[in-house]
């Protein structure tokens, strides 16, 4: 079930800009529409819509969130097999393999290169066959806590 847009849409065009699949069309200040065949259900439109006009694949109204609070991938190198499945899964092309050589281990690992381009869809984590990627809401910038604390909080 693809996402849809309802009458609450003000035609601001924010969803159109964020959609990585080019599935949304519509004129400025007019009701936008999602091409069902092109929609990949990444949810970026719903997270971005200020008018709460996007209906998700389960028929529920999608909740808008500040982009800085969208979930982002974290990589667990000890489980990662460097297979690049996540790189390919990312519709926003924001992941890359590291280039640096670690003496003794020349395998490259994925990392979030274009942090601002990440749409928080979680496809990378969903497609990783060995659970080496976790989606986490970034900690607010003001109250910077150590990553261990974040992990604890998540558990």
């Amino acid at each position: 079930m693809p996402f849809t847009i309802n009458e609450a849409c003000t035609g601001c065009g924010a969803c159109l800009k964020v959609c990585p699949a080019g599935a949304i069309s519509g004129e400025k200040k007019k009701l936008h529409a999602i091409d069902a065949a092109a929609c990949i259900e990444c949810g970026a439109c719903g997270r971005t819509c200020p008018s709460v006009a996007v209906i998700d694949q389960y028929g529920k109204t999608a909740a808008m969130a500040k982009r800085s609070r969208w979930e982002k991938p974290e990589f667990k190198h000890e489980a990662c097999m460097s297979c690049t499945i996540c790189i390919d899964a990312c519709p926003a092309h924001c992941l890359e393999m590291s280039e640096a050589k670690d003496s003794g281990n020349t395998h490259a690992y994925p990392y979030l290169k274009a942090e601002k381009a990440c749409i928080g869809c979680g496809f990378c984590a969903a497609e990783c066959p060995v659970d080496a990627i976790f989606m986490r809401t970034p900690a607010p910038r003001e109250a910077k806590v150590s990553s261990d604390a974040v992990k604890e909080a998540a558990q």
Partner: protein
Amino acid sequence: MNRGYMGKILMVDLSKGEFREETIRDEVYEKYLSGLGLAAYLLHDRIPAGADPLGPENVLGFVSGLLTGTGSLFAGRWMVVGKSPLTGTWGDANCGGSFSPAIKRCGYDGIFFTGASEKPVYLYIKNNKIELKDASSLWGKDAIESEELLQEQHGRGARVAVIGPSGEKLSLISGICNDKGRIAARSGLGAVMGSKKLKAVVLDGKKRIASYDQAAVRKLSKKCNKWVQFQLPLGPSIGAGLLGTLLRVLPTAMAMDGMIYKMILRQWGTGGLNQMSPEWGDSPIKNWKGSSTDWPLKRSKSADPDKIKRTEFVKYHCYSCPLGCGGKCSMTGKYSETHKPEYESVLALGGLCMNEDTDSLFLLNEMLNRGGMDTISAGATIAFAMECYERGIVTREDMDGIDLAWGNADAMVVLVHKMINREGIGDLLADGSRLAAERIGKGAHLYAVHAGGQEPAMHDGRQDPGFAVHYSVEPTPGRHTIGSQLYYEMFQLWKKVKGLPGKWPFQIYHKNTKYKASIDKAKEAAACSKYMNVINGSGLCMFGTFLGVTRTPTFDWLNAVTGWNKTPEEYMEIGARIQTLKQAFNIRQGVEPKNNKLSGRALGLPPQAEGANKGRTVPIDKMMEDYWQQFGWDSSTGKPTVDTLVRLGIDAR
């Protein structure tokens, strides 16, 4: 749909500049899988009988695999298909990299090109928009440069398959590249792309690929990955070389377990065998005339795996590969880096030409990757030319003044440049050794080693007759990535498929038994062909499947992804159907299967007087007949019988 496949293909008519989507029925996937099987099903009728491989009537296809993008491992192979201009037979070439999932992300299991464009173009698909764009500014540029320019324009997320100058100039040993130097090199399909004036295919789709039971797929993948990650310390690479010596000296051989090869691949890549293979007679030397005696460890150390590994700055993994046998290596000179030279490239440009210059191996590798030319065929053609030069069949004057003595690395660099650009003598050699021999005349054909026009790879049938059989009997002759006695041992199919000859772990047997034709050997060879068709329908990597069918669970993945409940025997039947259909394609094209028999020299006719394969001859005629019989093809002609076509449900005329 949730069955792993996309259920659609894209047909691009380059003459008219038109696109057409076609829906493929579920039954087709059940009968032929996706990938190579789907391509064989589609192209059997669509390429007219007697088609000119370089004419607009040939169809060039890019296909992905059924398991690609589903969370299965080792599923990153894409295949190029069409009628081969090199052999005139069914042509296919297989390549890793990142292009395979890109095809499915555009919503297709395959993209097929008919007709020919008048001016250079490339296909660009972004999301749902399909365009043919002008490629005039890219024409003449090498494959890596072109890929970089296209990614500059369309973003780094765009995946690019592209030909180099050799494909543009219709070299019959040219291929198609992706990921800056990984190449679908065999069967000369780069020339087909060049003949259609199609410079590149650039894909940037975002479609999701859905499986029937994703949790089951992941469970299987996790288990498989545990085997892949298991690694023992292997010590310095000379150990592998000395193991080769031991295997040569011993009167017995041992059934190999793919875990050993997996560890070699993990440590060094395919190049781990650079010194071992020539030692035990697996790799041909000096245009198949020489032997292990001519290429001892002290000479093969020019391609010492540890030495090559020291230049590797990062491992390279194809899509969905947990193993990572590839690598990026630094080098000095004109180019700063290259994909780690593969075993085939190193031996074809090294031992086969008696070339001991390590730097030249890196340079030639990069030149051929950029030029878009097959390293195996290029190396073999140069080795052929070197022998003609030694025998005085061609003179230094014929060779544009190049001193083509055995092992002259500088001469090889000049010659490869000429071959890629079809300059001078390079024009004569750019279409492989069979055509070069025809052009030279004067009995040169005696020194061109090929099967049906394609140069066999660096695996010697005089050591493992299985290679000689597959070079000779396959619908795409001269290919080493389908079967051999060694591959059969590693696939371990008997553990899953009923009725196949079994082996004990590390079973020891006398070497002499390898060189006798038997029904069991024919069954093993047929099983390899069938299984490889299943693998190529799935888009799996052969190296991954070497772990054995229980560790790399091809059949289980297929059932979990598609929701079918097929038995291993049923999958093997699909493999037989694909094999028979490819053979029927050849018959329809007027190919005489017997004519694809490997050249006598490579079969031990006459036998070698020294070295690892001394005194050995492959009883090829009997082995070919036995093989054909296994498939229910006429054992004297290799043509599928009507009964067999009916039994397999193939509607081929």
